[in-house]
């Protein structure tokens, strides 16, 4: 900005919140002594409509081109004051705020003189920065209204159908030769005992019948380039590979069941199967004459090498145990567990149901797990029942291992390809565990279902719809305003070391054809990590330039 700075300072009483402890008129008087300040006034409440009107009037009457408000916190009030500046015809980035309430009057209630001094210091700092502020732009990008969903299981199909129903086109990529994923293997699903095939049928029909969903079977995603709204995905099948433009990506690649080789006699002792194999036998009716069954929970989970709990196995065991009892109430069924993970209303009900049918629950210790050996006629299970303080020996016809869900082995490749992280266990890791459960930190890419962590069908479906909502937002808008506060690379200083690329959590920095850092402004969040880590000081942040911060810092320690 070429014109001379003309700064207006507005000091808020905030009723007595500030005015009761800070000498506001004194701060106003002091503000007028600061360089480039041409106007200053006190307000009872700067944020009231009256206060905002006064800012607008002052901008006009005093030809202000910078505005400083000394009041409360920018967290809640900055946009309000920026709005007033814009309404008076100024760019909102010429606005600066000094927090003389939360960080001053409130903490120095018992020392008003010092509070007043600190308020002056804070205003001086804000003015020092405001002198150097420049207008910034918020560029807009187009969003391609097509989604890419990777994985054709229940999560992927649910997400694809939702996107389709929201009005978008979808590419659905499945590596197998048919849709359905893990549910193709399962018999019935808790808590309603609905057949897995019944759950899949409407989803597969919906996906196959929709003209807006292009299903790519026997296919994998080879490469994804670009950024939110403008991804270019290469989908490879036997027939070759093809490029598609998509606006958003949903990862729904599911999980695998652990093959529990060597655990509790599996693959060594006759009559030891997994819960999945039991389901298949029950589905096919090939279970045979089984009079007694021992189920072993946590067969490969909640141990050092695989610390996580697989969430679904306890309820699955309760469901299968109940079904076995329903078929033949004389069957003796034991479930050896560590902590029963039946939670919420419906899954707790599954537990009561099994118990009432006479399923016997025996708790075992992680330190003294059950031992399964080959007996004369079938497996022999010895278990230390810690709650009884004694060892039980059971000779069942069948031992069923509840093996956990484990990450899909393809996760690693896909995570590198999409530049999204995996957690320690090898599942995809969301942006924020509490508030952004289906987002990745990288804009435009989302996750749902068991690709994220073990979960049951209902939770996968809710999550898939959640991911579809999140992915649908930018596509529904069509255009996206990106942040003005982004990093800028000074190519003269950049040495191409790549530190910034390494540090950036949003994949906003790449190397250009000359090997120098290049910021994709649409993706940059303005966090500043790149600038702080650049050894050549080649990167600065808009609105937080080194000069601005230096001026502000110096003003803190020295009177103008």
């Amino acid at each position, binding site marked *: 900005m070429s014109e001379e700075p003309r700064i207006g300072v507005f000091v808020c009483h905030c009723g007595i919140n500030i005015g009761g402890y800070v000498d506001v008129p004194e701060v106003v008087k002091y503000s007028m002594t600061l360089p480039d300040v041409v106007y200053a006034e006190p307000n009872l409440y700067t944020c009231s409509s009256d206060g905002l009107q006064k800012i607008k009037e002052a901008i006009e009457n005093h030809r202000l081109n910078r505005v400083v408000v000394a009041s409360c916190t920018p967290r809640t009030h900055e946009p309000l004051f920026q709005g007033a500046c814009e309404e008076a015809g100024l760019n909102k980035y010429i606005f600066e705020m000094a927090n003389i309430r939360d960080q001053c009057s409130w903490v120095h209630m018992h020392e008003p003189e010092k509070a007043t001094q600190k308020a002056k210091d804070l205003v001086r700092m804000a003015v020092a920065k405001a002198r150097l502020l420049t207008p910034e732009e918020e560029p807009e990008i187009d969003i391609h209204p097509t989604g890419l969903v990777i994985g054709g299981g229940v999560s992927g199909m649910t997400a694809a159908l939702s996107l389709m129903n929201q009005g978008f086109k979808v590419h659905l990529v499945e590596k197998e030769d048919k849709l359905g994923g893990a549910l193709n293997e399962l018999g019935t699903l808790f808590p309603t005992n609905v057949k897995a095939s019944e759950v899949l049928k409407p989803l597969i029909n919906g996906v196959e019948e929709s003209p807006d969903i292009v299903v790519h079977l026997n296919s994998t995603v080879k490469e994804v380039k670009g950024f939110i709204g403008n991804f270019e995905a290469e989908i490879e099948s036997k027939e070759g590979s093809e490029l598609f433009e998509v606006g958003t990506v949903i990862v729904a690649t599911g999980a695998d069941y652990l093959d529990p080789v060597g655990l509790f006699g599996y693959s060594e002792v006759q009559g030891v199967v997994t819960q999945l194999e039991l389901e298949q036998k029950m589905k096919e009716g090939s279970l045979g004459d089984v009079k007694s069954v021992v189920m072993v929970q946590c067969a490969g989970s909640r141990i050092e090498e695989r610390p996580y709990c697989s969430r679904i196995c306890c309820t699955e065991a309760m469901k299968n145990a109940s079904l076995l009892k329903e078929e033949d109430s004389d069957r003796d069924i034991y479930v050896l567990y560590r902590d029963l993970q039946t939670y919420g209303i419906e899954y707790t009900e599954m537990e*009561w149901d099994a*118990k*009432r049918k*006479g399923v*016997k*629950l*025996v*708790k075992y210790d992680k330190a003294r797990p059950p031992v399964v050996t080959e007996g004369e006629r079938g497996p022999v299970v010895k278990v230390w*029942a810690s*709650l*009884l*303080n004694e060892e*039980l020996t059971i000779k069942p016809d069948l031992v069923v291992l509840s093996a956990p869900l484990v990450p899909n082995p393809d996760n690693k490749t896909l995570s590198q390809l999409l530049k999204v992280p995996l957690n320690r266990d090898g599942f995809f890791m969301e942006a924020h565990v509490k508030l952004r459960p289906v987002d990745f930190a990288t804009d435009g890419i989302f996750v749902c279902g068991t690709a994220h962590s073990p979960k049951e069908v209902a939770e996968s479906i809710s999550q898939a719809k959640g991911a579809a909502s999140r992915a649908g937002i930018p596509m529904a808008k069509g255009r996206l305003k990106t942040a003005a506060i982004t990093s800028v690379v000074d190519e003269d200083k950049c040495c191409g070391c790549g530190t910034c690329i390494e540090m950036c959590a949003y994949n906003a920095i790449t190397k250009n054809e000359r090997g120098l850092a290049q910021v994709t402004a649409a993706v940059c969040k303005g966090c500043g990590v790149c600038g702080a880590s650049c050894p050549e000081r080649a990167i600065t942040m808009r609105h937080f330039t080194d000069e601005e911060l230096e001026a502000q810092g110096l003003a803190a320690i020295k009177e103008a």
Partner: protein
Amino acid sequence: MSSDVDQREVEFISLMLQKSVGEMHAEVCDQCGKCSSACPVSKEIEGFNPRQLIARVALGKMDELLADEAIWTCTTCLKCRERCPEEISPYDVILVLRNLAYRAGLNYPGGYDDFINGILERGFISEPQEVRARGGGKLSRGALGLPGVKGPKDMGVFRGIVEKIIEAGKGN
């Protein structure tokens, strides 16, 4: 078994005990330990644990339980019955187990025979005693002006009925 016992009664009583076993609902026990944690006997006597007792019932270890002396060491304080989140009431389970053990002729504390004999002889487990005064000397009901104790009018009929019922319980 006395000859004039109504067979129907025997069957009924035995059926009732079986029903009680089924009504224990031991299988729904969460093994939470709320019963044992406030049980005055569990605190005092090792080997008595109402929670483990229910677990054994749930696992079908009835024979082992009936022979276990522990079932006779309950103070009947009823805290377990009052608090069991699944309304299983170890106290009531213990009562049923005791009845079954007695029926099966298994060990039970000798004191019970004295009680039963007392009831059959005079209607009460004990007779009025002379009571020692703190300052010395002994006092009887009469000396204190308390009325005499009167048991069942027709001890013969009373004894016949009660004996029959107890025997019927012991039956088969």
